[in-house]
Protein backbone atom coordinates (compact mmCIF):
# COMPACT_ATOMS: atom_id res chain seq x y z
CA UNK A 1 0.00 0.00 0.00
CA UNK A 2 1.07 3.60 -0.27
CA UNK A 3 2.75 5.32 2.59
CA UNK A 4 0.91 5.39 5.86
CA UNK A 5 -0.19 8.75 7.06
CA UNK A 6 -0.12 10.76 10.27
CA UNK A 7 -2.91 13.25 10.57
CA UNK A 8 -3.59 15.83 13.28
CA UNK A 9 -7.27 16.01 14.13
CA UNK A 10 -8.25 19.57 14.92
CA UNK A 11 -11.49 19.91 16.83
CA UNK A 12 -13.23 23.28 16.73
CA UNK A 13 -15.49 24.71 19.38
CA UNK A 14 -16.68 28.14 20.47
CA UNK A 15 -14.30 29.59 23.01
CA UNK A 16 -15.51 29.84 26.55
CA UNK A 17 -13.74 33.11 27.30
CA UNK A 18 -14.27 34.64 23.84
CA UNK A 19 -17.63 33.56 22.41
CA UNK A 20 -17.02 35.25 19.08
CA UNK A 21 -14.07 32.97 18.35
CA UNK A 22 -13.85 29.30 17.53
CA UNK A 23 -10.80 27.64 19.01
CA UNK A 24 -9.21 24.23 19.00
CA UNK A 25 -10.00 21.91 21.88
CA UNK A 26 -8.97 18.54 23.19
CA UNK A 27 -11.61 16.16 24.44
CA UNK A 28 -11.99 13.14 26.66
CA UNK A 29 -14.66 10.71 25.59
CA UNK A 30 -16.19 13.54 23.61
CA UNK A 31 -16.45 15.92 26.57
CA UNK A 32 -14.10 17.67 29.06
CA UNK A 33 -13.18 20.33 26.55
CA UNK A 34 -9.85 22.06 27.05
CA UNK A 35 -8.97 24.98 24.80
CA UNK A 36 -5.52 24.59 23.33
CA UNK A 37 -5.02 26.86 20.37
CA UNK A 38 -5.95 28.79 17.26
CA UNK A 39 -6.92 26.93 14.06
CA UNK A 40 -4.65 28.77 11.63
CA UNK A 41 -1.71 28.88 14.04
CA UNK A 42 -1.84 25.16 14.82
CA UNK A 43 -2.33 24.28 11.16
CA UNK A 44 0.85 26.15 10.28
CA UNK A 45 2.75 24.39 13.01
CA UNK A 46 1.61 21.00 11.79
CA UNK A 47 2.46 21.94 8.26
CA UNK A 48 5.94 23.03 9.24
CA UNK A 49 6.32 19.79 11.14
CA UNK A 50 5.34 17.82 8.07
CA UNK A 51 1.90 16.41 8.84
CA UNK A 52 0.55 14.46 5.87
CA UNK A 53 -2.81 16.18 5.92
CA UNK A 54 -5.19 17.86 8.34
CA UNK A 55 -8.66 16.99 9.58
CA UNK A 56 -10.91 19.75 10.93
CA UNK A 57 -14.11 18.83 12.73
CA UNK A 58 -16.53 21.36 14.18
CA UNK A 59 -17.62 19.62 17.38
CA UNK A 60 -19.61 22.51 18.77
CA UNK A 61 -23.12 21.39 19.59
CA UNK A 62 -24.70 24.79 19.07
CA UNK A 63 -22.66 26.71 16.48
CA UNK A 64 -22.94 24.20 13.68
CA UNK A 65 -23.35 26.64 10.79
CA UNK A 66 -21.41 25.69 7.68
CA UNK A 67 -20.55 29.33 7.03
CA UNK A 68 -18.59 29.57 10.26
CA UNK A 69 -16.63 26.46 9.38
CA UNK A 70 -16.14 27.66 5.81
CA UNK A 71 -14.77 30.94 7.08
CA UNK A 72 -12.15 29.21 9.22
CA UNK A 73 -11.15 26.87 6.39
CA UNK A 74 -10.86 29.81 4.05
CA UNK A 75 -8.34 31.44 6.40
CA UNK A 76 -6.50 28.18 6.84
CA UNK A 77 -6.27 27.65 3.07
CA UNK A 78 -4.48 30.92 2.61
CA UNK A 79 -1.46 29.53 4.41
CA UNK A 80 -1.75 25.76 4.33
CA UNK A 81 -0.55 23.74 1.37
CA UNK A 82 -1.54 20.18 2.05
CA UNK A 83 -4.76 18.16 1.90
CA UNK A 84 -7.52 19.24 4.28
CA UNK A 85 -10.52 17.20 5.37
CA UNK A 86 -13.39 19.19 6.88
CA UNK A 87 -16.49 18.08 8.76
CA UNK A 88 -18.96 18.80 11.52
CA UNK A 89 -22.54 19.80 10.80
CA UNK A 90 -22.48 18.93 7.10
CA UNK A 91 -26.08 18.28 6.06
CA UNK A 92 -26.51 18.84 2.32
CA UNK A 93 -24.70 18.68 -0.98
CA UNK A 94 -24.68 22.46 -0.97
CA UNK A 95 -22.61 22.21 2.22
CA UNK A 96 -20.11 20.08 0.30
CA UNK A 97 -19.91 22.74 -2.40
CA UNK A 98 -19.47 25.55 0.13
CA UNK A 99 -16.63 23.83 1.97
CA UNK A 100 -14.90 22.64 -1.20
CA UNK A 101 -14.91 26.10 -2.67
CA UNK A 102 -13.40 27.46 0.54
CA UNK A 103 -10.38 25.21 0.33
CA UNK A 104 -11.40 21.82 1.64
CA UNK A 105 -10.23 18.78 -0.33
CA UNK A 106 -12.37 16.18 1.40
CA UNK A 107 -15.60 16.46 3.35
CA UNK A 108 -16.36 14.35 6.37
CA UNK A 109 -19.94 13.40 7.18
CA UNK A 110 -21.15 11.58 10.26
CA UNK A 111 -24.67 12.09 11.58
CA UNK A 112 -26.19 12.94 8.21
CA UNK A 113 -24.69 9.82 6.64
CA UNK A 114 -26.60 7.65 9.11
CA UNK A 115 -29.84 9.65 8.90
CA UNK A 116 -29.77 9.99 5.14
CA UNK A 117 -27.30 7.50 3.69
CA UNK A 118 -28.11 8.40 0.08
CA UNK A 119 -26.04 11.51 0.61
CA UNK A 120 -22.98 9.27 0.43
CA UNK A 121 -23.97 7.97 -3.00
CA UNK A 122 -24.95 11.40 -4.29
CA UNK A 123 -21.93 13.28 -3.03
CA UNK A 124 -19.62 10.58 -4.29
CA UNK A 125 -21.18 10.69 -7.76
CA UNK A 126 -21.10 14.46 -7.90
CA UNK A 127 -17.74 15.28 -6.33
CA UNK A 128 -15.88 12.02 -6.60
CA UNK A 129 -15.36 9.31 -4.02
CA UNK A 130 -12.03 10.82 -3.02
CA UNK A 131 -13.96 13.80 -1.61
CA UNK A 132 -16.24 11.80 0.66
CA UNK A 133 -15.06 10.69 4.09
CA UNK A 134 -17.51 8.97 6.40
CA UNK A 135 -16.72 9.46 10.06
CA UNK A 136 -17.84 6.64 12.35
CA UNK A 137 -17.96 7.14 16.13
CA UNK A 138 -18.78 4.11 18.22
CA UNK A 139 -18.78 2.61 21.70
CA UNK A 140 -18.77 -0.82 23.20
CA UNK A 141 -21.86 -1.53 25.28
CA UNK A 142 -22.62 -3.88 28.17
CA UNK A 143 -23.53 -6.64 25.73
CA UNK A 144 -19.90 -6.42 24.50
CA UNK A 145 -21.03 -5.35 21.06
CA UNK A 146 -20.09 -2.04 19.47
CA UNK A 147 -22.67 0.45 18.27
CA UNK A 148 -22.39 3.52 16.10
CA UNK A 149 -23.21 6.81 17.82
CA UNK A 150 -24.24 10.06 16.16
CA UNK A 151 -24.91 13.68 17.21
CA UNK A 152 -21.48 14.21 18.75
CA UNK A 153 -21.63 10.82 20.42
CA UNK A 154 -24.90 11.44 22.23
CA UNK A 155 -27.35 9.28 20.28
CA UNK A 156 -26.98 5.53 20.05
CA UNK A 157 -27.96 3.76 16.84
CA UNK A 158 -28.49 0.08 16.19
CA UNK A 159 -25.69 -0.03 13.63
CA UNK A 160 -22.55 -2.05 14.09
CA UNK A 161 -19.50 -0.04 13.03
CA UNK A 162 -18.21 -2.91 10.92
CA UNK A 163 -21.45 -3.41 8.97
CA UNK A 164 -21.88 0.33 8.62
CA UNK A 165 -18.33 0.72 7.32
CA UNK A 166 -18.91 -1.92 4.66
CA UNK A 167 -22.15 -0.23 3.62
CA UNK A 168 -20.43 3.17 3.38
CA UNK A 169 -17.88 1.72 1.01
CA UNK A 170 -20.61 0.19 -1.12
CA UNK A 171 -22.37 3.54 -1.28
CA UNK A 172 -19.27 5.26 -2.57
CA UNK A 173 -17.36 6.64 0.37
CA UNK A 174 -13.71 7.25 -0.45
CA UNK A 175 -12.33 6.97 3.06
CA UNK A 176 -13.41 6.09 6.60
CA UNK A 177 -12.53 7.88 9.84
CA UNK A 178 -13.04 5.76 12.93
CA UNK A 179 -13.22 6.89 16.52
CA UNK A 180 -13.79 4.79 19.62
CA UNK A 181 -15.57 7.23 21.92
CA UNK A 182 -14.47 5.54 25.15
CA UNK A 183 -10.84 5.82 24.17
CA UNK A 184 -11.02 9.37 22.85
CA UNK A 185 -8.45 11.51 24.69
CA UNK A 186 -7.78 8.83 27.27
CA UNK A 187 -4.25 8.13 26.05
CA UNK A 188 -4.16 4.41 26.70
CA UNK A 189 -4.22 3.30 23.09
CA UNK A 190 -6.34 2.93 19.98
CA UNK A 191 -9.02 0.31 19.42
CA UNK A 192 -7.08 -1.91 17.04
CA UNK A 193 -9.57 -4.75 17.06
CA UNK A 194 -12.45 -2.96 15.40
CA UNK A 195 -10.07 -1.10 13.13
CA UNK A 196 -8.54 -4.35 11.96
CA UNK A 197 -11.96 -5.91 11.41
CA UNK A 198 -12.94 -2.99 9.20
CA UNK A 199 -9.62 -2.47 7.40
CA UNK A 200 -9.48 -6.10 6.35
CA UNK A 201 -13.00 -5.99 4.93
CA UNK A 202 -12.92 -2.77 2.91
CA UNK A 203 -10.66 -1.63 0.11
CA UNK A 204 -10.90 2.09 0.84
CA UNK A 205 -8.42 3.74 3.23
CA UNK A 206 -9.21 3.62 6.94
CA UNK A 207 -8.10 6.35 9.33
CA UNK A 208 -8.15 5.30 12.96
CA UNK A 209 -8.34 7.70 15.90
CA UNK A 210 -9.14 7.91 19.57
CA UNK A 211 -6.68 7.13 22.34
CA UNK A 212 -3.09 7.79 21.32
CA UNK A 213 -0.94 8.45 24.36
CA UNK A 214 2.42 7.08 23.26
CA UNK A 215 4.29 6.78 20.00
CA UNK A 216 3.82 3.05 20.41
CA UNK A 217 0.06 3.45 20.05
CA UNK A 218 0.51 4.93 16.60
CA UNK A 219 2.73 2.00 15.66
CA UNK A 220 0.14 -0.46 16.94
CA UNK A 221 -2.56 1.32 14.99
CA UNK A 222 -0.64 0.61 11.80
CA UNK A 223 0.62 -2.87 12.63
CA UNK A 224 -2.27 -4.39 14.55
CA UNK A 225 -5.11 -2.16 13.42
CA UNK A 226 -3.97 -2.29 9.78
CA UNK A 227 -5.00 1.35 9.46
CA UNK A 228 -3.81 3.43 6.51
CA UNK A 229 -3.60 6.48 8.70
CA UNK A 230 -3.69 7.47 12.35
CA UNK A 231 -5.32 10.71 13.40
CA UNK A 232 -4.69 12.31 16.74
CA UNK A 233 -6.33 15.21 18.51
CA UNK A 234 -5.02 15.22 22.03
CA UNK A 235 -1.64 13.60 21.76
CA UNK A 236 0.32 16.56 20.44
CA UNK A 237 -1.45 19.23 22.43
CA UNK A 238 -0.44 18.44 25.96
CA UNK A 239 2.93 16.77 25.75
CA UNK A 240 6.51 17.50 24.84
CA UNK A 241 5.86 15.42 21.76
CA UNK A 242 6.66 17.01 18.50
CA UNK A 243 5.11 15.66 15.33
CA UNK A 244 8.48 15.07 13.73
CA UNK A 245 9.67 13.12 16.76
CA UNK A 246 6.67 10.84 16.58
CA UNK A 247 7.34 10.35 12.93
CA UNK A 248 10.95 9.29 13.62
CA UNK A 249 9.84 6.86 16.27
CA UNK A 250 7.30 5.31 13.91
CA UNK A 251 9.87 5.13 11.13
CA UNK A 252 12.31 3.44 13.50
CA UNK A 253 9.79 0.67 14.06
CA UNK A 254 9.78 -0.19 10.36
CA UNK A 255 6.51 1.38 9.23
CA UNK A 256 6.59 2.88 5.74
CA UNK A 257 5.73 6.52 6.35
CA UNK A 258 6.88 9.70 4.73
CA UNK A 259 10.11 10.97 6.23
CA UNK A 260 10.03 14.72 6.03
CA UNK A 261 12.96 17.01 6.35
Amino acid sequence: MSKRRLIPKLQLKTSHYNPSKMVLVTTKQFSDFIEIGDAVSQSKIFQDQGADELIFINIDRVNKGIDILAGIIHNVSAEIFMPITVGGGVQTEQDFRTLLSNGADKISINTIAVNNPDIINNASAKYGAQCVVVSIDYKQEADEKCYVYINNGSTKTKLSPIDWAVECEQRGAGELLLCNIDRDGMRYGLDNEICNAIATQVKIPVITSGGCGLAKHFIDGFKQGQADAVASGTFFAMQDQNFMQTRSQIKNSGINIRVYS
Partner: protein
Amino acid sequence: MIGIVDYGMGNLLSVYSAFDYLGANVIICKHPEELSEVGKIVIPGVGAFKDCMELLKKEHFDEALNEQVIKLGKPTIGICLGMQVMAKKSFEGGVYGGLGWFDADVIKLTITDEKKRVPNIGWNEVSHTSNPLFEGVPENTDFYFVHSYFVNCHDSSDVIATYPYDIPVTASILKNNIFATQFHPEKSQDFGLKILDNFISWNP
Protein backbone atom coordinates in the same frame (compact mmCIF):
# COMPACT_ATOMS: atom_id res chain seq x y z
CA MET B 1 1.52 38.53 -13.74
CA ILE B 2 0.25 34.98 -13.47
CA GLY B 3 -3.25 34.06 -14.59
CA ILE B 4 -5.19 31.09 -13.26
CA VAL B 5 -7.80 29.78 -15.65
CA ASP B 6 -11.23 29.63 -14.02
CA TYR B 7 -13.47 27.48 -16.15
CA GLY B 8 -15.60 26.18 -13.30
CA MET B 9 -13.59 23.17 -12.21
CA GLY B 10 -10.61 22.95 -9.95
CA ASN B 11 -9.43 24.01 -6.53
CA LEU B 12 -8.67 27.60 -7.43
CA LEU B 13 -8.38 28.87 -3.90
CA SER B 14 -5.45 26.68 -2.94
CA VAL B 15 -3.61 27.32 -6.18
CA TYR B 16 -4.20 31.05 -5.87
CA SER B 17 -3.12 31.07 -2.21
CA ALA B 18 0.06 29.20 -3.02
CA PHE B 19 1.18 31.70 -5.66
CA ASP B 20 0.15 34.60 -3.46
CA TYR B 21 2.08 33.13 -0.52
CA LEU B 22 5.17 32.93 -2.70
CA GLY B 23 4.86 36.63 -3.44
CA ALA B 24 3.75 36.42 -7.07
CA ASN B 25 1.25 38.76 -8.73
CA VAL B 26 -1.59 36.43 -9.52
CA ILE B 27 -5.14 36.88 -10.83
CA ILE B 28 -8.04 34.59 -11.56
CA CYS B 29 -9.06 34.69 -15.23
CA LYS B 30 -12.77 34.10 -15.57
CA HIS B 31 -12.81 35.10 -19.22
CA PRO B 32 -10.51 33.98 -22.02
CA GLU B 33 -9.63 37.56 -23.04
CA GLU B 34 -7.96 38.04 -19.67
CA LEU B 35 -5.27 35.56 -20.65
CA SER B 36 -3.76 38.06 -23.03
CA GLU B 37 -2.99 40.33 -20.07
CA VAL B 38 -0.88 37.83 -18.17
CA GLY B 39 2.66 36.65 -18.67
CA LYS B 40 2.22 33.11 -17.36
CA ILE B 41 -0.75 30.74 -17.26
CA VAL B 42 -1.97 28.13 -14.78
CA ILE B 43 -4.51 25.46 -15.71
CA PRO B 44 -5.84 23.75 -12.59
CA GLY B 45 -8.38 20.93 -12.59
CA VAL B 46 -10.15 18.37 -10.48
CA GLY B 47 -12.83 16.04 -11.80
CA ALA B 48 -13.55 14.30 -15.10
CA PHE B 49 -11.77 14.88 -18.42
CA LYS B 50 -14.97 15.05 -20.47
CA ASP B 51 -16.53 17.76 -18.25
CA CYS B 52 -13.33 19.75 -18.27
CA MET B 53 -12.97 19.81 -22.07
CA GLU B 54 -16.62 20.66 -22.48
CA LEU B 55 -16.31 23.64 -20.17
CA LEU B 56 -13.07 24.81 -21.76
CA LYS B 57 -14.74 24.74 -25.16
CA LYS B 58 -17.98 26.28 -23.94
CA GLU B 59 -16.14 29.21 -22.38
CA HIS B 60 -13.87 29.49 -25.45
CA PHE B 61 -10.85 29.00 -23.28
CA ASP B 62 -9.52 26.35 -25.66
CA GLU B 63 -9.06 28.88 -28.43
CA ALA B 64 -7.55 31.47 -26.12
CA LEU B 65 -5.16 28.89 -24.66
CA ASN B 66 -4.01 27.73 -28.05
CA GLU B 67 -3.33 31.32 -28.97
CA GLN B 68 -1.53 32.31 -25.77
CA VAL B 69 0.31 29.08 -25.05
CA ILE B 70 1.11 27.56 -28.45
CA LYS B 71 1.27 30.60 -30.69
CA LEU B 72 2.61 33.19 -28.25
CA GLY B 73 4.59 30.69 -26.16
CA LYS B 74 3.62 31.91 -22.69
CA PRO B 75 5.03 29.72 -19.89
CA THR B 76 2.22 27.50 -18.70
CA ILE B 77 1.67 24.96 -15.92
CA GLY B 78 -1.11 22.38 -15.88
CA ILE B 79 -2.06 20.69 -12.60
CA CYS B 80 -3.70 17.27 -12.27
CA LEU B 81 -6.66 17.32 -14.66
CA GLY B 82 -5.09 20.47 -16.08
CA MET B 83 -2.20 18.25 -17.17
CA GLN B 84 -4.43 15.53 -18.59
CA VAL B 85 -6.33 17.89 -20.90
CA MET B 86 -3.04 18.75 -22.58
CA ALA B 87 -2.98 15.25 -24.08
CA LYS B 88 -4.43 14.23 -27.45
CA LYS B 89 -7.24 12.12 -26.07
CA SER B 90 -8.56 10.45 -22.95
CA PHE B 91 -10.24 7.11 -22.38
CA GLU B 92 -11.99 8.15 -19.18
CA GLY B 93 -15.64 7.11 -19.47
CA GLY B 94 -15.44 7.00 -23.27
CA VAL B 95 -13.06 8.56 -25.78
CA TYR B 96 -12.66 12.30 -25.71
CA GLY B 97 -10.32 14.74 -27.40
CA GLY B 98 -7.95 16.97 -25.45
CA LEU B 99 -5.99 20.09 -26.35
CA GLY B 100 -3.41 17.94 -28.13
CA TRP B 101 -0.34 19.80 -26.92
CA PHE B 102 1.42 16.54 -26.06
CA ASP B 103 1.54 13.36 -28.08
CA ALA B 104 -0.10 11.32 -25.34
CA ASP B 105 -3.23 9.50 -24.23
CA VAL B 106 -4.92 9.53 -20.86
CA ILE B 107 -5.47 5.97 -19.68
CA LYS B 108 -6.53 4.28 -16.47
CA LEU B 109 -4.09 3.20 -13.78
CA THR B 110 -4.23 -0.59 -13.80
CA ILE B 111 -2.56 -2.44 -11.03
CA THR B 112 -1.97 -6.04 -10.16
CA ASP B 113 -0.82 -5.59 -6.59
CA GLU B 114 -3.97 -5.94 -4.50
CA LYS B 115 -2.59 -3.80 -1.74
CA LYS B 116 -2.60 -0.81 -4.06
CA ARG B 117 -5.75 1.16 -4.76
CA VAL B 118 -7.29 3.17 -7.59
CA PRO B 119 -7.77 6.09 -7.30
CA ASN B 120 -4.31 6.51 -5.91
CA ILE B 121 -4.68 9.07 -3.16
CA GLY B 122 -1.70 10.02 -1.10
CA TRP B 123 1.98 10.79 -1.03
CA ASN B 124 4.33 9.10 -3.49
CA GLU B 125 8.07 9.40 -4.10
CA VAL B 126 8.83 11.10 -7.39
CA SER B 127 11.92 10.50 -9.47
CA HIS B 128 12.83 13.33 -11.84
CA THR B 129 15.33 14.42 -14.46
CA SER B 130 17.47 17.48 -14.08
CA ASN B 131 15.32 20.41 -15.20
CA PRO B 132 14.61 23.98 -14.09
CA LEU B 133 11.19 23.26 -12.60
CA PHE B 134 12.51 20.64 -10.20
CA GLU B 135 15.55 22.68 -9.20
CA GLY B 136 16.22 22.27 -5.49
CA VAL B 137 13.91 19.26 -5.16
CA PRO B 138 15.78 16.21 -3.89
CA GLU B 139 15.36 12.87 -5.62
CA ASN B 140 12.52 10.73 -4.26
CA THR B 141 10.67 13.60 -2.65
CA ASP B 142 7.06 12.83 -1.87
CA PHE B 143 4.29 14.69 -3.65
CA TYR B 144 0.54 14.45 -3.17
CA PHE B 145 -1.46 12.63 -5.85
CA VAL B 146 -5.20 12.05 -6.31
CA HIS B 147 -5.94 10.30 -9.58
CA SER B 148 -7.28 7.25 -11.37
CA TYR B 149 -6.05 8.14 -14.85
CA PHE B 150 -2.60 9.15 -16.02
CA VAL B 151 -0.93 10.69 -19.05
CA ASN B 152 0.78 8.03 -21.15
CA CYS B 153 3.29 9.86 -23.37
CA HIS B 154 4.27 8.44 -26.74
CA ASP B 155 7.36 10.62 -26.82
CA SER B 156 9.32 9.65 -23.74
CA SER B 157 11.45 12.80 -23.88
CA ASP B 158 8.36 14.73 -22.74
CA VAL B 159 8.36 12.89 -19.43
CA ILE B 160 10.49 14.58 -16.77
CA ALA B 161 9.23 12.83 -13.66
CA THR B 162 7.60 9.55 -12.70
CA TYR B 163 6.59 7.65 -9.61
CA PRO B 164 6.27 3.89 -9.18
CA TYR B 165 2.78 2.40 -8.97
CA ASP B 166 3.32 -1.09 -10.35
CA ILE B 167 4.78 0.67 -13.38
CA PRO B 168 6.44 4.08 -13.67
CA VAL B 169 3.52 6.51 -13.81
CA THR B 170 3.95 9.92 -15.41
CA ALA B 171 4.24 12.53 -12.68
CA SER B 172 5.34 15.50 -14.76
CA ILE B 173 5.83 16.53 -18.37
CA LEU B 174 7.68 19.35 -20.08
CA LYS B 175 7.90 20.58 -23.64
CA ASN B 176 9.22 24.02 -24.57
CA ASN B 177 7.07 26.48 -22.61
CA ILE B 178 4.54 23.94 -21.34
CA PHE B 179 5.01 22.25 -17.99
CA ALA B 180 2.54 20.09 -16.10
CA THR B 181 2.26 17.93 -12.99
CA GLN B 182 -0.06 15.08 -12.18
CA PHE B 183 0.47 15.76 -8.48
CA HIS B 184 -0.83 18.83 -6.68
CA PRO B 185 2.08 21.16 -5.92
CA GLU B 186 -0.27 23.42 -3.95
CA LYS B 187 -0.95 20.45 -1.65
CA SER B 188 2.58 19.13 -1.40
CA GLN B 189 3.93 21.48 1.24
CA ASP B 190 7.47 22.79 0.92
CA PHE B 191 8.63 21.05 -2.20
CA GLY B 192 5.33 21.64 -3.91
CA LEU B 193 5.80 25.33 -3.21
CA LYS B 194 9.37 25.05 -4.47
CA ILE B 195 8.11 23.81 -7.83
CA LEU B 196 5.66 26.69 -8.04
CA ASP B 197 8.43 29.07 -7.05
CA ASN B 198 10.58 27.67 -9.84
CA PHE B 199 7.68 28.19 -12.25
CA ILE B 200 7.39 31.81 -11.15
CA SER B 201 11.01 32.47 -12.07
CA TRP B 202 11.06 30.18 -15.10
CA ASN B 203 12.19 31.68 -18.43
CA PRO B 204 11.91 28.95 -21.06
